[in-house]
Protein backbone atom coordinates (compact mmCIF):
# COMPACT_ATOMS: atom_id res chain seq x y z
CA UNK A 1 0.00 0.00 0.00
CA UNK A 2 1.55 3.23 -1.09
CA UNK A 3 1.75 5.89 1.56
CA UNK A 4 -0.04 9.06 0.74
CA UNK A 5 -1.91 7.60 -2.16
CA UNK A 6 -4.87 9.76 -2.75
CA UNK A 7 -8.07 8.13 -1.62
CA UNK A 8 -10.33 10.87 -2.84
CA UNK A 9 -10.51 11.86 -6.48
CA UNK A 10 -8.75 15.10 -7.38
CA UNK A 11 -11.23 17.92 -7.53
CA UNK A 12 -11.97 19.15 -11.03
CA UNK A 13 -10.38 22.57 -11.24
CA UNK A 14 -12.13 23.53 -14.48
CA UNK A 15 -15.92 23.37 -14.14
CA UNK A 16 -17.80 21.58 -16.89
CA UNK A 17 -19.68 23.94 -19.21
CA UNK A 18 -23.34 24.41 -18.49
CA UNK A 19 -25.08 22.70 -21.43
CA UNK A 20 -28.61 22.91 -20.13
CA UNK A 21 -29.56 25.76 -22.49
CA UNK A 22 -28.14 24.18 -25.67
CA UNK A 23 -30.80 23.11 -28.15
CA UNK A 24 -30.31 19.94 -30.12
CA UNK A 25 -30.09 20.90 -33.78
CA UNK A 26 -31.08 18.87 -36.75
CA UNK A 27 -30.96 19.58 -40.47
CA UNK A 28 -34.60 20.61 -40.38
CA UNK A 29 -34.42 23.13 -37.54
CA UNK A 30 -31.33 24.71 -39.04
CA UNK A 31 -32.98 24.87 -42.45
CA UNK A 32 -36.12 26.48 -41.10
CA UNK A 33 -34.02 29.15 -39.42
CA UNK A 34 -32.02 29.76 -42.61
CA UNK A 35 -35.17 29.88 -44.68
CA UNK A 36 -36.79 32.35 -42.31
CA UNK A 37 -33.94 34.73 -42.97
CA UNK A 38 -34.36 34.67 -46.74
CA UNK A 39 -36.76 37.41 -47.83
CA UNK A 40 -37.14 36.08 -51.36
CA UNK A 41 -38.03 32.65 -50.07
CA UNK A 42 -40.62 33.94 -47.64
CA UNK A 43 -42.21 36.12 -50.32
CA UNK A 44 -42.35 33.19 -52.72
CA UNK A 45 -43.88 30.97 -50.04
CA UNK A 46 -46.53 33.60 -49.34
CA UNK A 47 -47.48 33.81 -53.01
CA UNK A 48 -47.66 30.03 -53.35
CA UNK A 49 -49.82 29.81 -50.23
CA UNK A 50 -52.21 32.38 -51.65
CA UNK A 51 -52.60 30.26 -54.77
CA UNK A 52 -53.08 27.19 -52.62
CA UNK A 53 -55.79 28.89 -50.62
CA UNK A 54 -57.53 29.84 -53.87
CA UNK A 55 -57.31 26.24 -55.05
CA UNK A 56 -58.73 24.99 -51.76
CA UNK A 57 -61.53 27.50 -52.09
CA UNK A 58 -62.44 26.05 -55.45
CA UNK A 59 -62.23 22.50 -54.12
CA UNK A 60 -64.56 23.40 -51.29
CA UNK A 61 -66.96 24.92 -53.76
CA UNK A 62 -66.78 28.51 -52.64
CA UNK A 63 -65.40 30.41 -55.60
CA UNK A 64 -64.96 30.06 -59.33
CA UNK A 65 -67.80 27.60 -59.72
CA UNK A 66 -69.56 29.14 -62.65
CA UNK A 67 -66.93 28.58 -65.26
CA UNK A 68 -68.82 26.70 -67.92
CA UNK A 69 -72.16 28.43 -67.95
CA UNK A 70 -72.80 30.45 -71.09
CA UNK A 71 -73.53 33.80 -69.65
CA UNK A 72 -73.03 36.28 -72.41
CA UNK A 73 -73.27 36.42 -76.13
CA UNK A 74 -69.63 36.11 -77.04
CA UNK A 75 -66.79 38.38 -76.25
CA UNK A 76 -67.34 41.08 -73.72
CA UNK A 77 -64.79 43.26 -72.13
CA UNK A 78 -64.10 43.71 -68.46
CA UNK A 79 -67.20 44.71 -66.57
CA UNK A 80 -68.48 44.65 -63.04
CA UNK A 81 -70.28 41.40 -63.68
CA UNK A 82 -67.47 39.64 -65.45
CA UNK A 83 -64.25 40.86 -63.93
CA UNK A 84 -62.05 39.65 -66.75
CA UNK A 85 -64.68 39.60 -69.44
CA UNK A 86 -66.03 36.60 -71.25
CA UNK A 87 -64.59 34.37 -73.88
CA UNK A 88 -65.94 33.39 -77.25
CA UNK A 89 -68.53 31.06 -75.73
CA UNK A 90 -69.69 33.63 -73.25
CA UNK A 91 -68.06 31.92 -70.30
CA UNK A 92 -66.71 34.06 -67.50
CA UNK A 93 -62.94 34.30 -67.81
CA UNK A 94 -62.38 35.16 -64.15
CA UNK A 95 -64.19 32.00 -63.00
CA UNK A 96 -62.25 29.95 -65.53
CA UNK A 97 -58.96 31.36 -64.33
CA UNK A 98 -59.79 30.54 -60.71
CA UNK A 99 -60.90 27.06 -61.71
CA UNK A 100 -57.63 26.71 -63.57
CA UNK A 101 -55.77 27.23 -60.31
CA UNK A 102 -57.48 24.16 -58.92
CA UNK A 103 -56.62 22.10 -62.01
CA UNK A 104 -53.02 23.25 -61.85
CA UNK A 105 -52.68 22.24 -58.22
CA UNK A 106 -54.41 18.95 -58.85
CA UNK A 107 -52.09 18.03 -61.69
CA UNK A 108 -49.05 19.38 -59.90
CA UNK A 109 -49.68 17.66 -56.57
CA UNK A 110 -50.62 14.28 -58.02
CA UNK A 111 -47.62 14.20 -60.34
CA UNK A 112 -45.16 15.65 -57.82
CA UNK A 113 -46.14 13.39 -54.92
CA UNK A 114 -46.39 10.17 -56.89
CA UNK A 115 -43.27 10.71 -58.99
CA UNK A 116 -41.22 11.67 -55.93
CA UNK A 117 -42.44 8.65 -53.94
CA UNK A 118 -41.78 6.23 -56.79
CA UNK A 119 -38.46 7.83 -57.68
CA UNK A 120 -37.39 7.90 -54.05
CA UNK A 121 -38.20 4.26 -53.35
CA UNK A 122 -36.70 2.98 -56.59
CA UNK A 123 -33.64 5.18 -56.17
CA UNK A 124 -33.10 4.00 -52.59
CA UNK A 125 -33.46 0.35 -53.59
CA UNK A 126 -31.14 0.82 -56.57
CA UNK A 127 -28.56 2.63 -54.46
CA UNK A 128 -28.72 0.20 -51.56
CA UNK A 129 -28.38 -2.86 -53.77
CA UNK A 130 -25.73 -1.11 -55.75
CA UNK A 131 -23.89 -3.15 -58.36
CA UNK A 132 -26.36 -6.01 -58.26
CA UNK A 133 -28.98 -7.05 -60.75
CA UNK A 134 -31.62 -4.91 -59.04
CA UNK A 135 -29.59 -1.79 -59.62
CA UNK A 136 -28.90 -2.73 -63.23
CA UNK A 137 -32.59 -3.32 -63.94
CA UNK A 138 -33.66 -0.02 -62.43
CA UNK A 139 -30.93 1.86 -64.28
CA UNK A 140 -31.95 0.15 -67.52
CA UNK A 141 -35.54 1.23 -66.99
CA UNK A 142 -34.37 4.74 -66.25
CA UNK A 143 -32.29 4.86 -69.42
CA UNK A 144 -35.14 3.59 -71.58
CA UNK A 145 -37.63 6.11 -70.28
CA UNK A 146 -35.13 8.93 -70.64
CA UNK A 147 -34.58 8.13 -74.29
CA UNK A 148 -38.09 8.82 -75.47
CA UNK A 149 -38.84 12.50 -76.00
CA UNK A 150 -41.33 13.71 -73.45
CA UNK A 151 -44.19 15.02 -75.57
CA UNK A 152 -44.04 12.04 -77.87
CA UNK A 153 -44.08 9.75 -74.86
CA UNK A 154 -47.23 11.42 -73.62
CA UNK A 155 -48.73 11.00 -77.09
CA UNK A 156 -47.81 7.31 -77.05
CA UNK A 157 -49.34 6.85 -73.59
CA UNK A 158 -52.46 8.65 -74.77
CA UNK A 159 -52.71 6.15 -77.62
CA UNK A 160 -52.29 3.25 -75.24
CA UNK A 161 -54.76 4.48 -72.65
CA UNK A 162 -57.36 5.39 -75.26
CA UNK A 163 -58.00 8.90 -74.04
CA UNK A 164 -58.56 8.14 -70.41
CA UNK A 165 -58.61 11.39 -68.41
CA UNK A 166 -55.56 10.47 -66.33
CA UNK A 167 -53.36 9.50 -69.28
CA UNK A 168 -51.44 12.74 -68.98
CA UNK A 169 -50.77 12.25 -65.26
CA UNK A 170 -49.55 8.70 -65.82
CA UNK A 171 -47.22 9.83 -68.60
CA UNK A 172 -45.82 12.67 -66.52
CA UNK A 173 -45.21 10.45 -63.50
CA UNK A 174 -43.53 7.87 -65.73
CA UNK A 175 -41.08 10.51 -66.95
CA UNK A 176 -40.48 12.55 -63.82
CA UNK A 177 -39.59 9.73 -61.48
CA UNK A 178 -36.28 9.19 -63.26
CA UNK A 179 -34.45 12.35 -62.20
CA UNK A 180 -35.48 11.86 -58.56
CA UNK A 181 -34.38 8.23 -58.79
CA UNK A 182 -30.93 9.10 -60.05
CA UNK A 183 -30.25 11.74 -57.40
CA UNK A 184 -31.55 9.57 -54.55
CA UNK A 185 -29.49 6.65 -55.80
CA UNK A 186 -26.31 8.75 -55.70
CA UNK A 187 -27.09 9.90 -52.18
CA UNK A 188 -27.98 6.41 -50.94
CA UNK A 189 -24.69 5.04 -52.22
CA UNK A 190 -23.01 7.55 -49.94
CA UNK A 191 -25.34 6.88 -47.00
CA UNK A 192 -24.83 3.14 -47.34
CA UNK A 193 -21.26 3.41 -46.11
CA UNK A 194 -22.11 5.43 -43.00
CA UNK A 195 -21.46 3.76 -39.68
CA UNK A 196 -24.94 3.47 -38.32
CA UNK A 197 -26.08 1.65 -41.45
CA UNK A 198 -23.16 -0.73 -41.11
CA UNK A 199 -24.08 -1.20 -37.47
CA UNK A 200 -27.68 -1.99 -38.35
CA UNK A 201 -26.54 -4.52 -40.91
CA UNK A 202 -24.19 -6.10 -38.39
CA UNK A 203 -27.08 -6.39 -35.93
CA UNK A 204 -28.93 -8.37 -38.53
CA UNK A 205 -31.64 -5.84 -39.35
CA UNK A 206 -33.34 -6.76 -42.62
CA UNK A 207 -32.45 -4.80 -45.74
CA UNK A 208 -35.94 -3.48 -46.37
CA UNK A 209 -36.22 -2.22 -42.80
CA UNK A 210 -32.89 -0.48 -43.10
CA UNK A 211 -33.93 1.16 -46.34
CA UNK A 212 -37.27 2.41 -45.11
CA UNK A 213 -36.38 3.33 -41.58
CA UNK A 214 -32.86 4.66 -41.86
CA UNK A 215 -31.86 5.40 -45.42
CA UNK A 216 -34.95 7.03 -46.88
CA UNK A 217 -35.59 9.46 -44.01
CA UNK A 218 -32.12 10.81 -44.71
CA UNK A 219 -33.10 11.59 -48.26
CA UNK A 220 -36.21 13.57 -47.35
CA UNK A 221 -34.51 16.88 -48.06
CA UNK A 222 -33.67 15.73 -51.59
CA UNK A 223 -37.20 14.41 -52.06
CA UNK A 224 -38.67 17.73 -50.95
CA UNK A 225 -36.64 19.74 -53.46
CA UNK A 226 -37.29 17.26 -56.26
CA UNK A 227 -40.98 17.37 -55.45
CA UNK A 228 -41.11 21.11 -55.91
CA UNK A 229 -39.22 20.87 -59.20
CA UNK A 230 -41.61 18.17 -60.40
CA UNK A 231 -44.60 20.32 -59.44
CA UNK A 232 -43.36 23.20 -61.59
CA UNK A 233 -42.52 20.96 -64.54
CA UNK A 234 -45.94 19.34 -64.29
CA UNK A 235 -47.76 22.63 -64.47
CA UNK A 236 -45.68 23.90 -67.36
CA UNK A 237 -45.96 20.66 -69.31
CA UNK A 238 -49.70 20.56 -68.78
CA UNK A 239 -50.01 23.83 -70.69
CA UNK A 240 -48.23 22.52 -73.75
CA UNK A 241 -49.92 19.14 -73.58
CA UNK A 242 -53.35 20.72 -73.53
CA UNK A 243 -52.31 22.76 -76.55
CA UNK A 244 -51.40 19.52 -78.31
CA UNK A 245 -54.74 18.06 -77.36
CA UNK A 246 -53.31 15.58 -74.90
CA UNK A 247 -54.03 17.35 -71.67
CA UNK A 248 -56.93 18.08 -69.43
CA UNK A 249 -60.21 16.99 -70.93
CA UNK A 250 -62.75 17.55 -68.19
CA UNK A 251 -62.73 20.95 -66.68
CA UNK A 252 -60.70 23.95 -67.63
CA UNK A 253 -57.09 24.77 -67.03
CA UNK A 254 -54.75 27.60 -67.93
CA UNK A 255 -53.56 25.45 -70.80
CA UNK A 256 -57.07 25.29 -72.22
CA UNK A 257 -57.40 29.04 -71.91
CA UNK A 258 -54.07 29.63 -73.60
CA UNK A 259 -54.92 27.32 -76.49
CA UNK A 260 -58.18 29.17 -76.96
CA UNK A 261 -56.40 32.46 -76.90
CA UNK A 262 -53.99 31.58 -79.70
CA UNK A 263 -56.61 32.40 -82.26
CA UNK A 264 -57.96 35.35 -80.38
CA UNK A 265 -54.79 37.35 -80.09
CA UNK A 266 -54.40 37.75 -83.81
CA UNK A 267 -57.79 39.39 -83.72
CA UNK A 268 -56.69 41.67 -80.93
CA UNK A 269 -58.59 40.13 -78.05
CA UNK A 270 -56.23 39.62 -75.16
CA UNK A 271 -58.38 38.91 -72.09
CA UNK A 272 -58.04 35.15 -72.07
CA UNK A 273 -54.36 35.30 -72.81
CA UNK A 274 -53.40 37.90 -70.22
CA UNK A 275 -55.44 36.31 -67.46
CA UNK A 276 -54.13 32.78 -67.96
CA UNK A 277 -50.53 33.69 -68.65
CA UNK A 278 -50.16 36.09 -65.73
CA UNK A 279 -51.59 33.60 -63.24
CA UNK A 280 -49.42 30.85 -64.69
CA UNK A 281 -46.30 32.99 -64.70
CA UNK A 282 -46.85 34.17 -61.14
CA UNK A 283 -47.36 30.70 -59.76
CA UNK A 284 -44.43 29.19 -61.66
CA UNK A 285 -41.94 31.91 -60.78
CA UNK A 286 -43.04 31.93 -57.13
CA UNK A 287 -42.63 28.18 -56.96
CA UNK A 288 -39.26 28.33 -58.70
CA UNK A 289 -37.99 30.93 -56.24
CA UNK A 290 -39.43 28.91 -53.36
CA UNK A 291 -37.65 25.79 -54.64
CA UNK A 292 -34.40 27.74 -54.93
CA UNK A 293 -34.69 29.14 -51.42
CA UNK A 294 -35.58 25.68 -50.10
CA UNK A 295 -32.56 24.17 -51.76
CA UNK A 296 -30.30 26.87 -50.35
CA UNK A 297 -31.75 26.42 -46.86
CA UNK A 298 -31.37 22.63 -46.94
CA UNK A 299 -27.83 22.71 -48.28
CA UNK A 300 -25.56 21.89 -45.35
CA UNK A 301 -22.52 23.20 -47.20
CA UNK A 302 -23.87 26.71 -47.54
CA UNK A 303 -22.89 28.36 -44.32
CA UNK A 304 -24.58 31.64 -43.53
CA UNK A 305 -23.81 33.81 -40.57
CA UNK A 306 -26.00 32.62 -37.72
Amino acid at each position, binding site marked *: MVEGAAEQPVANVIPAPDTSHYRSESLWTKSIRKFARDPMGIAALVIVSVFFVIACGVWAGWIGQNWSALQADGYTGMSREHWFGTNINGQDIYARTIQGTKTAFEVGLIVAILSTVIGGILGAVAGYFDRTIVDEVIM*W*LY*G*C*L*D*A*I*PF*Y*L*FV*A*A*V*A*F*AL*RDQPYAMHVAMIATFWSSTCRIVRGEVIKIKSLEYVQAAKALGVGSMTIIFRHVIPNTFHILLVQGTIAFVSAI*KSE*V*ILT*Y*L*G*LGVKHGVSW*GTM*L*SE*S*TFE*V*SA*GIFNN*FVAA*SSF*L*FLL*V*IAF*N*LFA*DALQDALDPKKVTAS
Partner: protein
Amino acid sequence: METLQFAFRKILYAIPLLFGVTLISFLLMVYFGPDLTYSLIGKNPTAEQIVEVRTQLGYDQPFFIRYGMFLKEIVTFDFGNSLSTGERVSSILLRTVPVSFAVALPGFILSELLALALALIAANNRGGFVDKGIMVFAVVGMSISFLIVVIIFQIVFCSVYGLNLFPVQGWVVSNVADYIHYVAVPTMVIVFVGLGYNTRFFRAVIVEELNRDYVRTARAYGVSRFRILSAHILKNAMIPISTRVIISLPFVVIAGNLVIERYFNIPGVGLITYNAITTGDLPIVKAVVTSTAILYVIALVFTDIVYRMIDPRVALNS
Protein backbone atom coordinates in the same frame (compact mmCIF):
# COMPACT_ATOMS: atom_id res chain seq x y z
CA MET B 1 -6.62 -1.26 -77.79
CA GLU B 2 -8.03 -0.37 -74.39
CA THR B 3 -10.24 2.24 -75.91
CA LEU B 4 -11.59 -0.35 -78.31
CA GLN B 5 -12.38 -2.68 -75.43
CA PHE B 6 -14.08 0.15 -73.59
CA ALA B 7 -16.03 1.09 -76.71
CA PHE B 8 -17.09 -2.50 -77.21
CA ARG B 9 -18.28 -2.76 -73.62
CA LYS B 10 -20.26 0.44 -73.95
CA ILE B 11 -21.91 -0.74 -77.15
CA LEU B 12 -22.76 -4.01 -75.46
CA TYR B 13 -24.32 -2.07 -72.63
CA ALA B 14 -26.39 -0.10 -75.08
CA ILE B 15 -28.04 -3.17 -76.60
CA PRO B 16 -30.45 -3.87 -73.70
CA LEU B 17 -31.28 -0.15 -73.78
CA LEU B 18 -32.16 -0.36 -77.45
CA PHE B 19 -34.32 -3.39 -76.81
CA GLY B 20 -35.98 -1.71 -73.87
CA VAL B 21 -36.75 1.43 -75.81
CA THR B 22 -38.19 -0.42 -78.76
CA LEU B 23 -40.15 -2.65 -76.40
CA ILE B 24 -41.72 0.32 -74.65
CA SER B 25 -42.58 1.97 -77.97
CA PHE B 26 -44.03 -1.30 -79.21
CA LEU B 27 -46.11 -1.88 -76.10
CA LEU B 28 -47.50 1.60 -76.00
CA MET B 29 -48.24 2.15 -79.63
CA VAL B 30 -48.75 -1.20 -81.29
CA TYR B 31 -49.75 -3.78 -78.74
CA PHE B 32 -51.94 -1.63 -76.53
CA GLY B 33 -52.48 0.89 -79.23
CA PRO B 34 -55.59 1.62 -81.23
CA ASP B 35 -57.06 -0.88 -83.61
CA LEU B 36 -56.05 0.28 -87.05
CA THR B 37 -58.20 -2.06 -89.05
CA TYR B 38 -60.96 0.37 -89.75
CA SER B 39 -58.67 3.24 -90.60
CA LEU B 40 -57.11 1.27 -93.43
CA ILE B 41 -60.28 0.02 -95.01
CA GLY B 42 -62.73 2.50 -96.38
CA LYS B 43 -66.39 2.54 -95.67
CA ASN B 44 -68.62 -0.53 -95.72
CA PRO B 45 -65.97 -3.19 -95.46
CA THR B 46 -66.91 -6.75 -96.09
CA ALA B 47 -66.06 -9.47 -93.62
CA GLU B 48 -63.30 -10.88 -95.82
CA GLN B 49 -61.70 -7.47 -96.22
CA ILE B 50 -61.63 -7.05 -92.46
CA VAL B 51 -60.00 -10.44 -91.96
CA GLU B 52 -57.50 -9.72 -94.72
CA VAL B 53 -56.43 -6.40 -93.26
CA ARG B 54 -56.18 -7.89 -89.80
CA THR B 55 -53.83 -10.60 -91.00
CA GLN B 56 -51.87 -8.01 -92.90
CA LEU B 57 -51.47 -5.93 -89.77
CA GLY B 58 -50.62 -9.06 -87.84
CA TYR B 59 -53.27 -8.73 -85.17
CA ASP B 60 -53.68 -12.47 -84.90
CA GLN B 61 -50.00 -13.22 -84.33
CA PRO B 62 -48.54 -13.91 -80.91
CA PHE B 63 -46.59 -11.27 -79.00
CA PHE B 64 -43.06 -12.10 -80.04
CA ILE B 65 -43.81 -12.32 -83.72
CA ARG B 66 -45.45 -8.92 -83.64
CA TYR B 67 -42.49 -7.52 -81.73
CA GLY B 68 -40.21 -9.05 -84.33
CA MET B 69 -42.23 -7.40 -87.10
CA PHE B 70 -41.87 -4.10 -85.31
CA LEU B 71 -38.11 -4.53 -85.02
CA LYS B 72 -37.89 -5.41 -88.68
CA GLU B 73 -39.75 -2.22 -89.51
CA ILE B 74 -37.20 -0.23 -87.58
CA VAL B 75 -34.17 -1.94 -89.07
CA THR B 76 -35.36 -1.60 -92.63
CA PHE B 77 -36.70 1.88 -91.85
CA ASP B 78 -39.95 0.98 -93.49
CA PHE B 79 -42.83 2.06 -91.33
CA GLY B 80 -45.52 1.77 -93.91
CA ASN B 81 -47.67 4.58 -95.09
CA SER B 82 -49.16 7.50 -93.31
CA LEU B 83 -52.79 6.98 -92.49
CA SER B 84 -53.88 10.44 -93.50
CA THR B 85 -51.95 11.14 -96.69
CA GLY B 86 -50.94 7.67 -97.75
CA GLU B 87 -47.38 8.79 -98.34
CA ARG B 88 -44.58 6.52 -97.27
CA VAL B 89 -43.40 7.41 -93.80
CA SER B 90 -39.72 7.16 -94.66
CA SER B 91 -40.06 9.63 -97.48
CA ILE B 92 -42.02 11.96 -95.23
CA LEU B 93 -39.22 11.84 -92.71
CA LEU B 94 -36.57 12.40 -95.37
CA ARG B 95 -38.44 15.44 -96.54
CA THR B 96 -39.05 16.99 -93.14
CA VAL B 97 -35.96 16.23 -91.07
CA PRO B 98 -33.69 18.68 -92.97
CA VAL B 99 -36.26 21.43 -92.50
CA SER B 100 -36.50 20.80 -88.76
CA PHE B 101 -32.75 20.77 -88.57
CA ALA B 102 -32.49 24.08 -90.41
CA VAL B 103 -35.02 25.66 -88.10
CA ALA B 104 -33.73 24.31 -84.82
CA LEU B 105 -30.00 24.50 -85.35
CA PRO B 106 -29.34 28.26 -85.23
CA GLY B 107 -31.47 28.61 -82.11
CA PHE B 108 -29.80 25.65 -80.47
CA ILE B 109 -26.26 26.85 -81.15
CA LEU B 110 -27.02 30.45 -80.22
CA SER B 111 -28.72 29.55 -76.98
CA GLU B 112 -25.88 27.28 -75.86
CA LEU B 113 -23.21 29.85 -76.72
CA LEU B 114 -25.09 32.74 -75.17
CA ALA B 115 -25.82 30.70 -72.03
CA LEU B 116 -22.14 29.81 -71.75
CA ALA B 117 -21.09 33.44 -72.09
CA LEU B 118 -23.68 34.59 -69.55
CA ALA B 119 -22.71 31.82 -67.15
CA LEU B 120 -19.05 32.76 -67.38
CA ILE B 121 -19.83 36.40 -66.68
CA ALA B 122 -22.10 35.43 -63.79
CA ALA B 123 -19.63 33.01 -62.25
CA ASN B 124 -16.87 35.56 -62.56
CA ASN B 125 -18.81 38.21 -60.62
CA ARG B 126 -20.22 35.65 -58.24
CA GLY B 127 -22.48 37.24 -55.64
CA GLY B 128 -22.26 40.61 -57.29
CA PHE B 129 -24.89 42.71 -58.95
CA VAL B 130 -24.23 41.34 -62.43
CA ASP B 131 -24.51 37.80 -61.18
CA LYS B 132 -27.79 38.42 -59.40
CA GLY B 133 -29.15 40.25 -62.43
CA ILE B 134 -28.30 37.41 -64.79
CA MET B 135 -29.77 34.86 -62.41
CA VAL B 136 -33.01 36.79 -62.07
CA PHE B 137 -33.23 36.94 -65.83
CA ALA B 138 -32.60 33.19 -65.97
CA VAL B 139 -35.33 32.41 -63.44
CA VAL B 140 -37.81 34.61 -65.29
CA GLY B 141 -36.87 32.95 -68.56
CA MET B 142 -37.38 29.55 -66.97
CA SER B 143 -40.76 30.47 -65.60
CA ILE B 144 -42.47 31.74 -68.71
CA SER B 145 -44.22 28.96 -70.53
CA PHE B 146 -43.08 28.16 -74.06
CA LEU B 147 -46.50 28.88 -75.43
CA ILE B 148 -46.61 32.32 -73.88
CA VAL B 149 -43.24 33.23 -75.34
CA VAL B 150 -44.33 32.13 -78.81
CA ILE B 151 -47.52 34.13 -78.64
CA ILE B 152 -45.84 37.24 -77.31
CA PHE B 153 -43.07 37.12 -79.87
CA GLN B 154 -45.56 36.60 -82.63
CA ILE B 155 -47.52 39.61 -81.50
CA VAL B 156 -44.47 41.78 -81.08
CA PHE B 157 -42.55 40.87 -84.19
CA CYS B 158 -45.02 39.60 -86.70
CA SER B 159 -48.39 41.13 -86.26
CA VAL B 160 -49.80 44.55 -86.94
CA TYR B 161 -49.99 45.30 -83.22
CA GLY B 162 -46.23 45.16 -83.02
CA LEU B 163 -43.35 45.69 -85.36
CA ASN B 164 -44.60 43.58 -88.24
CA LEU B 165 -41.07 42.80 -89.32
CA PHE B 166 -41.26 39.09 -89.94
CA PRO B 167 -43.82 36.76 -91.47
CA VAL B 168 -46.33 35.21 -89.14
CA GLN B 169 -45.86 31.81 -90.63
CA GLY B 170 -44.61 29.95 -93.59
CA TRP B 171 -41.48 28.53 -94.99
CA VAL B 172 -40.58 29.45 -98.51
CA VAL B 173 -36.83 29.31 -98.57
CA SER B 174 -34.78 29.60 -101.70
CA ASN B 175 -31.82 31.66 -100.60
CA VAL B 176 -30.04 32.87 -97.50
CA ALA B 177 -32.01 36.08 -97.15
CA ASP B 178 -35.27 34.15 -97.18
CA TYR B 179 -33.84 31.75 -94.65
CA ILE B 180 -32.99 34.52 -92.24
CA HIS B 181 -36.36 36.10 -92.84
CA TYR B 182 -38.24 32.97 -91.89
CA VAL B 183 -36.00 31.60 -89.20
CA ALA B 184 -35.53 34.79 -87.21
CA VAL B 185 -38.52 34.67 -84.89
CA PRO B 186 -38.39 30.89 -84.24
CA THR B 187 -34.71 31.28 -83.38
CA MET B 188 -35.46 34.10 -80.98
CA VAL B 189 -38.11 32.01 -79.26
CA ILE B 190 -35.81 29.01 -78.91
CA VAL B 191 -32.99 31.15 -77.56
CA PHE B 192 -35.21 32.90 -75.04
CA VAL B 193 -36.68 29.71 -73.67
CA GLY B 194 -33.45 27.73 -73.52
CA LEU B 195 -31.39 30.53 -72.03
CA GLY B 196 -32.79 30.27 -68.52
CA TYR B 197 -32.19 26.59 -67.94
CA ASN B 198 -28.85 26.50 -69.69
CA THR B 199 -27.41 29.55 -67.94
CA ARG B 200 -28.27 28.17 -64.52
CA PHE B 201 -26.81 24.77 -65.29
CA PHE B 202 -23.60 26.13 -66.84
CA ARG B 203 -23.13 28.60 -64.01
CA ALA B 204 -23.46 25.80 -61.44
CA VAL B 205 -20.84 23.74 -63.26
CA ILE B 206 -18.43 26.66 -63.57
CA VAL B 207 -18.87 27.72 -59.93
CA GLU B 208 -18.14 24.19 -58.84
CA GLU B 209 -14.93 24.27 -60.85
CA LEU B 210 -14.02 27.66 -59.41
CA ASN B 211 -14.14 26.21 -55.92
CA ARG B 212 -11.53 23.63 -56.62
CA ASP B 213 -8.07 23.69 -55.11
CA TYR B 214 -6.15 24.00 -58.34
CA VAL B 215 -7.86 27.30 -59.05
CA ARG B 216 -6.85 28.63 -55.66
CA THR B 217 -3.30 27.49 -56.29
CA ALA B 218 -3.22 29.16 -59.67
CA ARG B 219 -4.49 32.41 -58.21
CA ALA B 220 -1.88 32.20 -55.48
CA TYR B 221 0.74 31.87 -58.17
CA GLY B 222 -0.60 35.03 -59.72
CA VAL B 223 -2.20 33.60 -62.83
CA SER B 224 -4.69 36.09 -64.21
CA ARG B 225 -8.42 35.47 -63.74
CA PHE B 226 -9.01 35.47 -67.45
CA ARG B 227 -6.37 32.86 -68.11
CA ILE B 228 -7.72 30.62 -65.37
CA LEU B 229 -11.18 30.84 -66.83
CA SER B 230 -10.26 30.25 -70.41
CA ALA B 231 -7.43 27.81 -70.19
CA HIS B 232 -8.34 25.69 -67.19
CA ILE B 233 -11.90 25.98 -66.03
CA LEU B 234 -13.43 25.96 -69.48
CA LYS B 235 -11.73 22.70 -70.29
CA ASN B 236 -12.95 20.98 -67.16
CA ALA B 237 -16.40 22.46 -67.33
CA MET B 238 -16.69 21.39 -70.95
CA ILE B 239 -17.17 17.79 -69.94
CA PRO B 240 -20.60 17.99 -68.32
CA ILE B 241 -21.58 20.79 -70.69
CA SER B 242 -20.74 18.92 -73.86
CA THR B 243 -22.44 15.79 -72.56
CA ARG B 244 -25.62 17.70 -72.10
CA VAL B 245 -25.33 19.34 -75.50
CA ILE B 246 -24.69 16.12 -77.38
CA ILE B 247 -27.44 14.29 -75.55
CA SER B 248 -30.01 16.96 -76.33
CA LEU B 249 -29.08 16.97 -80.01
CA PRO B 250 -31.32 14.04 -81.08
CA PHE B 251 -34.32 15.67 -79.46
CA VAL B 252 -33.59 18.93 -81.21
CA VAL B 253 -33.01 17.39 -84.59
CA ILE B 254 -35.55 14.65 -84.92
CA ALA B 255 -38.35 15.40 -82.53
CA GLY B 256 -38.48 18.81 -84.07
CA ASN B 257 -40.13 21.42 -82.05
CA LEU B 258 -43.81 20.67 -82.09
CA VAL B 259 -45.04 23.95 -80.78
CA ILE B 260 -42.81 26.19 -82.87
CA GLU B 261 -43.42 24.36 -86.10
CA ARG B 262 -47.12 24.25 -85.48
CA TYR B 263 -47.24 27.96 -84.75
CA PHE B 264 -45.12 29.14 -87.59
CA ASN B 265 -46.44 26.50 -89.93
CA ILE B 266 -42.99 25.22 -90.79
CA PRO B 267 -43.17 21.87 -92.61
CA GLY B 268 -40.76 19.99 -90.39
CA VAL B 269 -40.88 16.83 -88.33
CA GLY B 270 -42.63 18.67 -85.51
CA LEU B 271 -45.56 19.72 -87.67
CA ILE B 272 -45.91 16.22 -89.12
CA THR B 273 -45.83 14.75 -85.63
CA TYR B 274 -48.34 17.27 -84.36
CA ASN B 275 -50.76 16.42 -87.14
CA ALA B 276 -50.14 12.74 -86.53
CA ILE B 277 -50.91 13.09 -82.84
CA THR B 278 -54.11 15.03 -83.34
CA THR B 279 -55.40 12.82 -86.12
CA GLY B 280 -54.24 9.58 -84.54
CA ASP B 281 -51.87 8.75 -87.37
CA LEU B 282 -49.94 5.94 -85.77
CA PRO B 283 -47.15 5.03 -88.24
CA ILE B 284 -45.65 8.51 -88.13
CA VAL B 285 -45.68 8.73 -84.34
CA LYS B 286 -44.16 5.26 -84.19
CA ALA B 287 -41.40 6.23 -86.59
CA VAL B 288 -40.52 9.50 -84.89
CA VAL B 289 -40.54 8.12 -81.35
CA THR B 290 -38.41 5.11 -82.17
CA SER B 291 -35.90 7.02 -84.31
CA THR B 292 -35.38 9.68 -81.66
CA ALA B 293 -34.98 7.14 -78.90
CA ILE B 294 -32.47 5.11 -80.85
CA LEU B 295 -30.51 8.24 -81.77
CA TYR B 296 -30.46 9.16 -78.09
CA VAL B 297 -29.00 5.81 -77.09
CA ILE B 298 -26.37 6.15 -79.83
CA ALA B 299 -25.55 9.68 -78.62
CA LEU B 300 -25.16 8.32 -75.07
CA VAL B 301 -22.69 5.66 -76.19
CA PHE B 302 -20.90 8.20 -78.35
CA THR B 303 -20.38 10.66 -75.50
CA ASP B 304 -19.09 7.94 -73.21
CA ILE B 305 -16.52 6.83 -75.75
CA VAL B 306 -15.47 10.38 -76.57
CA TYR B 307 -15.07 11.11 -72.83
CA ARG B 308 -12.78 8.18 -72.57
CA MET B 309 -10.66 9.53 -75.36
CA ILE B 310 -10.34 13.11 -74.18
CA ASP B 311 -10.28 12.71 -70.41
CA PRO B 312 -7.51 10.43 -69.16
CA ARG B 313 -9.04 10.37 -65.66
CA VAL B 314 -11.95 8.34 -66.95
CA ALA B 315 -9.48 5.81 -68.32
CA LEU B 316 -7.88 5.39 -64.93
CA ASN B 317 -11.20 4.94 -63.15
CA SER B 318 -12.79 2.36 -65.41
